[in-house]
């Protein structure tokens, strides 16, 4: 699986209230959540993000609440993957469960700038900054996890495997 897109940069400790404010959690509809994705960190983000874009952020991305609405909102807004030096524990698990690929790479978080074109190869974990030509490395995503992501998350994956999806 290869992901290629334009980068939006965010700082450290981007919490789930920034990803999707709780005032919108009276629904779990992905499209509605997408309209408010990241708005408390950057009010214009829902308008300017395009399908396939990549978020590069500082450490502890996704800290705070357990809301699965956070990866749902990011995915529905078109974010193809998130790269950060570290992720909060609950968000990490929720992201894969929802089929949102995430990559831990401190160097990429430091080097890649907003607006850069970046390509991520999930098989090798290689993150290529196409704007600067620099290559960095994260942990690859193993094939079974890539399959889970391709199926749209854990539950869709299990249903497909059990033949009832």
């Amino acid at each position, binding site marked *: 699986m290869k992901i290629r897109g334009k980068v939006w940069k965010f700082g450290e400790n981007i919490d789930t209230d920034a990803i999707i*404010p709780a*005032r919108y959690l009276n629904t*779990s509809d992905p499209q509605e959540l997408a309209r408010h994705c990241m708005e408390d960190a950057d009010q214009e983000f829902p308008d300017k993000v395009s399908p396939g874009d990549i978020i590069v952020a500082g450490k502890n991305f996704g800290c705070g609440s357990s809301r*699965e609405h956070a990866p749902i909102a990011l995915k529905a807004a078109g974010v193809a993957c998130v790269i950060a030096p570290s992720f909060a524990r609950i968000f990490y698990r929720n992201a894969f469960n929802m089929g949102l690929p995430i990559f831990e790479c401190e160097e990429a978080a430091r080097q890649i700038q907003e607006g850069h074109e970046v390509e991520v190869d999930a098989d090798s974990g290689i993150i290529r900054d196409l704007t600067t030509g620099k290559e960095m490395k994260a942990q690859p995503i193993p094939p079974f996890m890539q399959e889970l992501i391709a199926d749209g998350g854990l*539950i869709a994956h299990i249903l497909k495997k059990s033949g009832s999806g």
Partner: protein
Amino acid sequence: MSRPMTIAEKIIAAHSGHDWVEPGQLVDVQLDMALGNDITAPISIEIFKKAGAKKVFDRKKIALVADHFTPNKDIKSAEQVRMLREFSQEHAILHFYEGGQVGVEHCLLPEKGIVLPGDVVIGADSHTCTYGALGAFATGVGSTDLAAAMITGRTWFKVPESIKIVYKGELQPWVGGKDLILYTIGDMGVDGALYMAMEFTGPVIESLPMADRFTMSNMAIEAGGKAGLINPDTITEEYVSKRAGRSYQVFRSDEDAGYARVIEYDCSAIEPQIAFPHLPENTVGISEVGTVELDQVVIGSCTNGRIEDLAVAAGILQGKTVAEGLRLIVLPATPAIWAEALEKGFLKIFSDAGAVIGPPTCGPCLGGHMGVLAKGEKALSTTNRNFVGRMGHPESELYLASPAIAAASAVLGRIGSPGELE
């Protein structure tokens, strides 16, 4: 074969069919309780149906608590609660709470003896770690993990490393559990315990009342912790024995258990703590705050909405009035706490002081309703998070502190301590 274990390791071992476990090991554990609320459980219920599940694993081991937007703030939130209600009726869920029965989940479940020492609990709410104060292994998960747990009664864990935090010394006046945990988060940072189990120990913890212990375990997640445990003792036993409706097993860390880190704090040097916007780690002592004028003060939540918290606030507010132009909002965390506050005269004191007294609800803590902030407003709250926009407008500011500081600040109209009122 055996090895010295921490309380977290012992509980996980006992629930996964192992004699012992060690950090990093992946285990499949049996759950004693799975929890969801009106924000997270609707997604779990949808997944449950989509997966074609017909039955929950155990109708007595699932708690659905409609506490976040109660009393339902709009049509959409009422629809979410309807989903919980219908699901609970269909599956005869024993612990479904709404309306006049609902309280803030992490105060309600311990109060009713639904979570007990030695339990493994997962909840689709990050503050599920609160139950660590009872000596349970409890952690927050997402809605998908909750859905799977409702079907199977099991989940998988990576056994976390533990950090032992030892609190020593004499507590200063007006310093309690809230100040100790804010100080700890200030020292360790919001990811200082990422993926780890925090274990709060030492002479100070051993004499700390349950309410303060719940406050500390509640905020383990604000340091990134997977859990925040306290070894059960006579104080735990006294709290639990009159509430437990089933048997439970007490686990305590072995003296020679292994820890990733051991941290020691001299509490005699800790003054009341205030977390400045916009992270719980931005803590300073009350003497360093300077002048911060406030528009609103909130006393309540799963962190500090217990009767002991209200007693402290009432003691300070008795015979005093809230500063002009400031809104004080008091939200007792459960119906039982509300009733006790009424009986003890606390509500009269709050009312005479000019406070708004609300129902048990998470409401303003997450900027939901019942105390949302306008642009540029400043509030001090006894809740647990002060992220950007947490209590309302993204350009509002939120400060976190104890009920004592909150009550005094409400009278002063700025952040200050009870000592200034004398």
